[in-house]
């Protein structure tokens, strides 16, 4: 056994380069317009169609240590939040280039680490000002307004930064004037009914009243002379709640501060539809299904609780997807209950069973004779012998099947759901005696049936007693169309449900089997975005707004630290006694600049992907233009908020076609996004600090055969 040790950080940092090249593969997945990829296995000529980062990494060969760490980070993000992986991947690429740039410029590694991580922290604090609170979205939910009303809009093409650049220039001239005239506008989103009363009318007045009645105490800030501002939301703004914000450039001029205070619009979101459109990120068809699912859950909750005293919570664990490849896309729908697929030979049985509610048994494991619960070890050396010739030794399966059937008959059970496999022989017998057995049922579905029907899950059918049996389950056909599944056997979908059951099945159909996975992934992405938005009761302004603010903020910080020198630098460093702490000021502007460049790269990728910018150069010019404006305005966050409102009003005034006036806001979820940033930076910094790879357990010869260059042996 030999330990090999390879130095990976000599002149070029191999690890960082690997990271950027891995990240490069996923850059087309960023943003609302995603281009799919084919991944082809050269050995077995299989190919998969993918359009998400997670699926991409699943299909790539990431056996190198850095590749594995990347995969681990993406998986962790995906497992925790189910979203934000493309952001993560793209930022990993952008920041690993940024870190490498710092290395080229001779910045000590420890300083890159501490300045970058504090720089990102500062960004995360800064973007609080772009948070939009979500309030009572379920208060005004009504079924006349559904997602389909907005379906025609193509939200994806209008992220924040894509205001036609001529309007941007034009507006710049009127900046101060606009500021004055708009200073009292409350930008409550549903309160934007000016031109679209049909969609957003009813709540506007109510909301405005609510705003005025709130008086938070946190605003002791004397700068906020303008009491006309609706403060309730401003408490969320770091911009006003911070007493000594000496890091802000705007402080150099009292006027600027006041000006920005006055222009700050109060964004809020209290309309479910508005929120969903904002979070759909261009995937209307998936979000439409999410919308239907939420409404169904809402109705269910209303039915269950009678009144609506308990606030409704969107429960994502109560949503289940059923993929039916081969059916036309238009059949995708949302159904209350559980939709699953059974063999078409069961038609008669279903017809029989759908007449009345039936009783159900839930089985945790397989429903086969040989199944034993987890942790049970069957000894191999036991031989069963029969003493008389009458009993055939192979009848044990039949004995077992008969026994199961007896139990089912005894408790009058017509439906058995099993989490695992079911013995074919048992299925046959049950079908004959008008009993339906369904295998491979998802755990959360079992849970939902247990809660709604009163059944208790058992491991063995012998455990069944009266208390374990649930009742009141209805079986029907989902649609009476059979379809040919991949394996050629004809199958059909059935629907099982119980009164008060907290389960909604989203049926996803696609004529192209290869797209099924993508469709399912996209549905879940939308569902989880909405889930986190509702859970956190806040969203961020999306479409690149937050990233733009980070970029602008870091540039300002970098400039400030260039001028200010060594004043507050020691607070940024762990180890205050090292010389690194005292030379922090020297390197800080450089590192912050590089970190900002990472954001820049991210934004230009985003813009290029939305297809309205043909070249990276054009995108960069566009970003540069707005950066300049933001810096000139003195407060980037108010500049962005201003642009947001202008985008609407500006487009109104310039008389562009009627359709454009309905452009809704694009939103992003807060914590998952920020966590993706942190994860990306953590990974980059982890790799940056790594100087060698230690490979254990490989023989000298094995490494020789690969590339022995740079290996040291112990």
């Amino acid at each position, binding site marked *: 056994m030999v330990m090999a*040790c390879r130095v990976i950080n000599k002149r070029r940092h191999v690890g960082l380069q690997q990271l950027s090249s891995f990240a490069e593969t996923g850059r087309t997945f960023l943003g609302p317009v995603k281009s799919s990829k084919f991944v082809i296995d050269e050995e077995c000529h299989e190919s998969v169609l993918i359009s998400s980062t997670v699926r991409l990494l699943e299909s790539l060969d990431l056996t190198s240590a850095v590749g594995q760490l990347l995969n681990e980070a993406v998986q962790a993000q995906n497992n925790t939040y189910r979203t934000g992986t493309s952001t993560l991947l793209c930022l990993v690429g952008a920041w690993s280039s940024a870190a490498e740039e710092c290395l080229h410029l001779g910045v000590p590694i420890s300083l890159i680490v501490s300045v970058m991580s*504090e720089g990102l922290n500062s960004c995360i604090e800064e973007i609080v000002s772009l948070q939009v609170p979500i309030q009572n979205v379920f208060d005004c939910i009504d079924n006349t307004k559904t997602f389909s009303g907005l379906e025609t809009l193509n939200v994806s093409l209008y992220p924040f930064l894509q205001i036609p650049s001529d309007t941007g220039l034009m507006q710049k001239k009127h900046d101060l004037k606009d500021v004055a005239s708009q200073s009292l506008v409350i930008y409550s989103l549903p309160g934007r009914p000016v031109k679209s009363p049909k969609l957003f009318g009813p709540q506007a007045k109510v909301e405005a009243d609510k705003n005025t009645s709130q008086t938070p105490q946190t605003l002791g800030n004397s700068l906020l002379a303008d009491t006309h501002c609706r403060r309730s939301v401003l408490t969320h703004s770091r911009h006003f709640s911070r007493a000594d914000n000496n890091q802000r450039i705007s402080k150099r001029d009292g006027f600027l501060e006041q000006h920005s205070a006055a222009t700050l619009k109060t964004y809020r979101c209290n309309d479910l539809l508005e929120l969903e459109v904002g979070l759909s990120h261009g995937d209307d068809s998936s979000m439409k299904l999410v919308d239907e699912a939420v409404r169904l859950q809402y109705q269910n909750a209303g039915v269950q609780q009678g009144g609506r005293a308990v606030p409704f919570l969107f429960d994502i664990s109560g949503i289940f997807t059923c993929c039916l490849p081969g059916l036309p896309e238009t059949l995708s729908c949302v159904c209350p209950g559980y939709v699953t697929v059974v063999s078409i030979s069961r038609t008669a049985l279903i017809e029989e069973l759908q007449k009345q509610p039936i009783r159900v048994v839930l089985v945790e494991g397989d429903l086969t004779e040989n199944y034993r619960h987890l942790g049970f070890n069957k000894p191999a050396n*036991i031989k*069963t012998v029969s003493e008389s010739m009458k*009993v055939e030794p192979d009848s044990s399966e039949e004995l077992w099947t008969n026994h199961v059937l007896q139990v089912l008959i005894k408790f009058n059970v017509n439906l058995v759901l099993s989490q695992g496999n079911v013995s074919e022989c048992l299925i046959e017998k049950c079908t004959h005696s008008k009993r339906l057995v369904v295998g491979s049922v998802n755990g959360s579905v079992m849970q939902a049936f247990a809660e709604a029907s009163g059944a*208790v899950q058992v491991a063995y059918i012998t455990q069944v007693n009266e208390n374990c049996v649930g009742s009141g389950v209805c079986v029907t056909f989902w649609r009476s169309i059979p379809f040919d599944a991949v394996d050629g056997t004809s199958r059909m979908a059935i629907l099982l449900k119980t009164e008060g059951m907290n389960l909604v099945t989203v049926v996803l159909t696609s004529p192209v089997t290869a797209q099924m996975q993508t469709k399912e992934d996209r549905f879940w992405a939308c569902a989880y975005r909405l889930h986190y938005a509702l859970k956190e009761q806040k969203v961020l302004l999306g479409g690149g707004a937050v990233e733009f603010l980070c970029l602008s903020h870091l540039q300002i910080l970098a400039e400030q630290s260039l001028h200010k020198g060594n004043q507050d630098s020691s607070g940024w460093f762990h180890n205050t006694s090292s*010389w690194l702490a005292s030379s922090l000021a020297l390197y800080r502007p450089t590192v912050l600049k590089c970190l900002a460049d990472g954001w820049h790269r991210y934004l230009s990728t985003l813009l290029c992907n939305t297809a309205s910018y043909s070249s990276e150069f054009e995108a960069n010019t566009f970003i540069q233009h707005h950066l300049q404006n933001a810096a000139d305005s003195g407060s980037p966050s108010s500049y962005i908020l201003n642009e947001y409102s202008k985008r609407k009003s500006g487009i109104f005034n310039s008389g562009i076609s009627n359709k454009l006036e309905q452009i809704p806001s694009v939103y992003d979820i807060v914590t998952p996004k920020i966590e993706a940033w942190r994860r990306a930076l953590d990974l980059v910094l982890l790799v940056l600090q*790594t100087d060698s790879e230690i*490979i254990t357990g490989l023989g000298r010869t094995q490494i020789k055969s690969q590339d022995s260059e740079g290996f040291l042996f112990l």
Partner: protein
Amino acid sequence: MMSRVEAKKPSSCESEPLTSERVRVTLSVLKGVMTSCYGPAGRLKQLHNGRGGSVRTTSQSAALLTGLPVSHPVLKILVASVQNHVSCFSDCGLFTAILCCNLVENVQRIGLPPTTVIKLNKHLLSLCTSYLTSEACGCRIPVDFSCTQILLCLVRSILTSKPACMLTRKEIDHVSTLILRVFLLTIPENAKDRIILGKSVIIPLKGQRVTDSTVLPGILIEIPEVQLMKILPIKKSDSFKVALFCASLSGDLSDTGEGTLVVSYRVSLENAVLDQLLNLGRQLVSDHVDLVMCQKVIHPSLKQFLRTHGVTAIDRVGVALMEPLSKATGTQPIGSLASISPSSYGSVKDLGTAKFGSKRFFHLIPNEATVCSLLLCSRNDTAWDELKLTSQTALHALQLTIREPCVLLGGGCTETHMAAYIRHKTRSEPESILQDSACTQTELQLISEAFCGALESVAGSLEHDGGEMLTDGTYGHFWSVQADSSSVVNWPDLLSRCGCGLHSCRGELGWSFLRSPCPPFSPVTCLPPHEAAGAANNLTLDCFTAKLSGLQVAVETANLILDLSYVIEDKN
């Protein structure tokens, strides 16, 4: 039958192993690996098997050395002693390894006979240990347990020294506080003459933010939501009677031995075992047990039986929780299915459930709360592994501090201070050593220089970004400065604080470069306890016991390696 025809290979014998080029190179590679990991700015290593196994990013000796196969016996000795030290003291593994390598390297350069070197090294070591343990020691701070400042600094120093944990400053403060709280929770309230510390359990919560980490008294057992639903609701009571099983209750046949067991088809062994289990269940019910926990699996039928009789059953607790559970509940783990002695039962004060992240937990609150759970969160797996190990090290360091209530100055200051002390001692009063070891004054000077150089090199290993290292001529502390600043005359303009953070820069201290010759001086002691406690806000500290042991292990291992004259290997 084939018989073995291969002839036995002769054993190989290598004389003077240390003189071989191969040993020298591999030792220096190992030293390079250890040195580059040292300290808060240390570089990380990716540890993996090159075949797609999991990747561990680390800079800790414990992680680096386990499973690190080294080929030469000299390296094996070194690795084994460091591992042994780490298994007893957790902290200061890298210090030990680097110091040992330095000593071997420095002494080899001198070329004195090993016996003389070993004898002198021993004397120098005893000088160090008696200085460190004496009241006059200038690099030691007493710990006052009524004040948390010093303890927090110790924990913070340990966390800071492992960059692969990927903690920001705020997160370090948060985790330090948690670790200190865990430590305090494990101290029994009314200790008599002997303190028996309680247990703490670290529970992983990967994927969450570090600041979501928390400490709870009692024990948390992770259980799937499905199972939780079956357990609830828990009835209210003042005390719950607990039975804890280490034997499997899954109903499988315990070891049937070799050979084949022939059973009649009318006999069902499974049912027989299940009957036995249900009998056990009946006894538990009649003994009024409220909670049954099992290390392994409980048969679903037994679980169902217990549930219908109002007994909560939790299985698959895992071996790691057995000791803490037994301690927290006062139970004797039950190892057989035969009748249970009533003395095996224990009790808990309260039961509940908790949810953290996406995980559900069953929460046991014991009567005597010296058992607690630390829920440790981290964004990614590799950082979590490092954070867990570091937290355990920090906790261990705190426990060792009870035994020896003092800490050493960290950040390289103890090493340079000790070096200054040894230099001064061997110059000013060499007589006792010379008498004892029968060597010349020159030999003593050479070896003491090698010894002090090795210590100072350890301190110097803290620097990874090309900075210059200095030591002052008053306290003998360690200072660092940006490279290429030798032309600067006025040091105070560049220096801020010494390595441990105790002294700030004053003009009269008199600096010199670390590896340059300087006149020996007696380092001044400047540690009045009250002042130390006050200024202790941002000190870098080391665990006293661990460092002292590390020093001893390093010197003794170096002596052992220097003493090797033959390596005989059986090649078969």
